[in-house]
């Protein structure tokens, strides 16, 4: 039990340590990028579950991120005052709508962020099921290309749709209220609370996924990944398990999209771009495919460096190069499982020891 919870506690400790470091060095502005990193990490760990544990690749997860972000952004900014009908009145009476003021002092009647979030997740689940059903029958390159298609479709739709802001995207998205008076927002005054909120959500997501891996379902997924026909012969519905994992990882991406959009107060079409999807896959790959902690730590480092602009205009190129190098020299990822024992074996000079796996 202790061994199981140790990594979670250690990671939480790291998050606290980083915050304290910014406090003592007087650099609290770093927390803004670190908070954004947290939400991107949520996409990465969900994708890691799909790639590493269910053995399926997706080059379209930026699309699911964007579906979440755009649905929530649109619903919480679209003014319903001039569209009053029976349905809007019903929503208003049931408390699903909120009156608020925009930055110019005008009044707005919009959907409550919680309802918008629920709608975003529902739409993502629907799309993931509809697309995943036929697409997951494909394998290898074909699956990669088909999922690439999903991302491109979402990108072109948001880029070409007037009421989604076309190339400008949607801005002035309100904060996301949470119980206890907390608000997910990018205001400098709530930087620290939002930093902890975001990473708390990531840790919660990690705990859910770690539980899943250790469960009957996780074992079945490992079996499907290892020998699909044998898993099928043991009564495991392999297609359904792959599809459910696909939908689950899409929901992780959509939730991240919703929350980051409220944090950033807006979203643009680049979030749906192919290079974003490639970046997520690259981070999972470098983190060690079937290694949630590896993917999470790589996401923390790389997303942060990218968001701080360390890669400059070469940002996308850096992730492309990382993906190529990993595929060439460490296809199991840098932080793959059993890395320590493998290293020990390489270092040990005793040939007898080398033979025992």
């Amino acid at each position: 039990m202790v061994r199981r919870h140790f990594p979670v506690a250690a990671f939480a400790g790291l998050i606290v340590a980083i915050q304290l470091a910014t406090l003592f060095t007087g650099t609290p502005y770093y927390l803004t990028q670190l908070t954004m990193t947290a939400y991107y990490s949520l996409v990465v760990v969900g994708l890691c579950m799909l790639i590493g544990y269910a053995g399926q690749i997706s080059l379209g997860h930026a699309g699911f991120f964007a579906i979440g972000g755009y649905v929530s952004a649109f619903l919480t900014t679209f003014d319903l005052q001039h569209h009053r009908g029976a349905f809007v009145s019903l929503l208003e009476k049931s408390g699903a709508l909120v009156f608020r003021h925009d930055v110019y002092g005008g009044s707005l009647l919009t959907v409550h962020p919680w309802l918008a979030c629920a709608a975003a997740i529902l739409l993502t689940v629907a799309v993931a099921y509809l697309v995943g059903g036929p697409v997951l029958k494909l394998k290898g390159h074909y699956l990669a290309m088909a999922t690439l298609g999903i991302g491109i479709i979402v990108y072109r739709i948001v880029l070409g749709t007037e009421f989604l802001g076309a190339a400008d995207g949607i801005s002035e998205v309100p904060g996301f209220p949470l119980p206890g008076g907390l608000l997910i927002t990018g205001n400098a005054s709530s930087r620290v609370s939002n930093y902890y909120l975001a990473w708390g959500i990531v840790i919660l997501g990690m705990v859910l996924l770690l539980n899943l891996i250790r469960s009957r379902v996780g074992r079945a997924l490992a079996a499907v990944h290892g020998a699909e026909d044998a898993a099928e012969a043991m009564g495991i519905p392999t297609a359904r398990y792959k599809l459910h994992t696909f939908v689950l990882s899409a929901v992780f991406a959509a939730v991240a999209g919703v929350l980051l959009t409220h944090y950033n107060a807006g979203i643009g079409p680049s979030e749906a771009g192919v290079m974003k999807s490639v970046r997520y896959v690259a981070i999972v790959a470098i983190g060690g495919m079937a290694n949630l902690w590896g993917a999470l730590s790589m996401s923390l480092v790389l997303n942060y460096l990218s968001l701080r602009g360390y890669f400059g205009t070469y940002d996308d190129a850096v992730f492309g190069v990382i993906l190529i190098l990993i595929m060439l020299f460490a296809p199991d990822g840098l932080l793959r499982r059993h890395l320590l024992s493998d290293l020990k074996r390489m270092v040990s000079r005793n040939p007898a020891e080398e033979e025992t796996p």
Partner: protein
Amino acid sequence: MTLLSVRGIGKRFGGLQAVNDLSFDVAAGSIKALIGPNGAGKTTIFNLVSGFLHPDNGVIVFGGAEIQALSSCEVAVRGMVRTFQHIRLFPRMTVLENILVGRHVHSRAGFLAGMLSLPFTWKEERRIREKSFEIMEMLGIAGHAGTEATSLAYGQQRVVEIGRALACEPKLLLLDEPAAGLNMRETIEMGALISRIRDMGVTVLLVEHDMSLVMKISDEVVVVSYGEKIAEDRPLAIQKNREVIRVYLGDDEC
């Protein structure tokens, strides 16, 4: 009582009629062997029965219901579990984990219950482990529980694969060449194990090339050649059957 009834099934691959109008029954509690020269269609028949392939025509009745249209997964859920000619253990998983997977159809924790680690899943996991250790002890592989399954000796891997199938508590166990690649001693042990499994109440249908094993343990034997049944009888009668001898040894020998 008949557990499995294959009635007039056929399967064509392009220009090749791999299985043609084949019928046989497997009585509950018996060991039935399917033999025939190389390329006779035995593995195809196995794949048809276990849902990995679907027959072009004919009916397969298992436990009173038609199953020829079901997937291999659905067939397994109904209590028919198979092993593979080329051992298909789950790589990078221990012997115990391989057997645990076999308990899949007898447990129910889904995605949500797993993620939330609901209390009922803990109890379920405990039961799965207990049952798996029971099976490993019966097969004498409990000592290897923590060993990576694919690193075991070939003969032991076969036993693990059978253990994994037994963990499903099948009504009918399909064994595809269980003695392939085993030495003489291991083959004898395998024969004893299969008899023991039958005595536990599990019906067995096997494809096998080792005639001494087949003749020793089978209650009945079906002989196929070029996708058609040429004989079905008790082992002793099969050994004397002229048609069978002709198929195996050629015309000149008669």
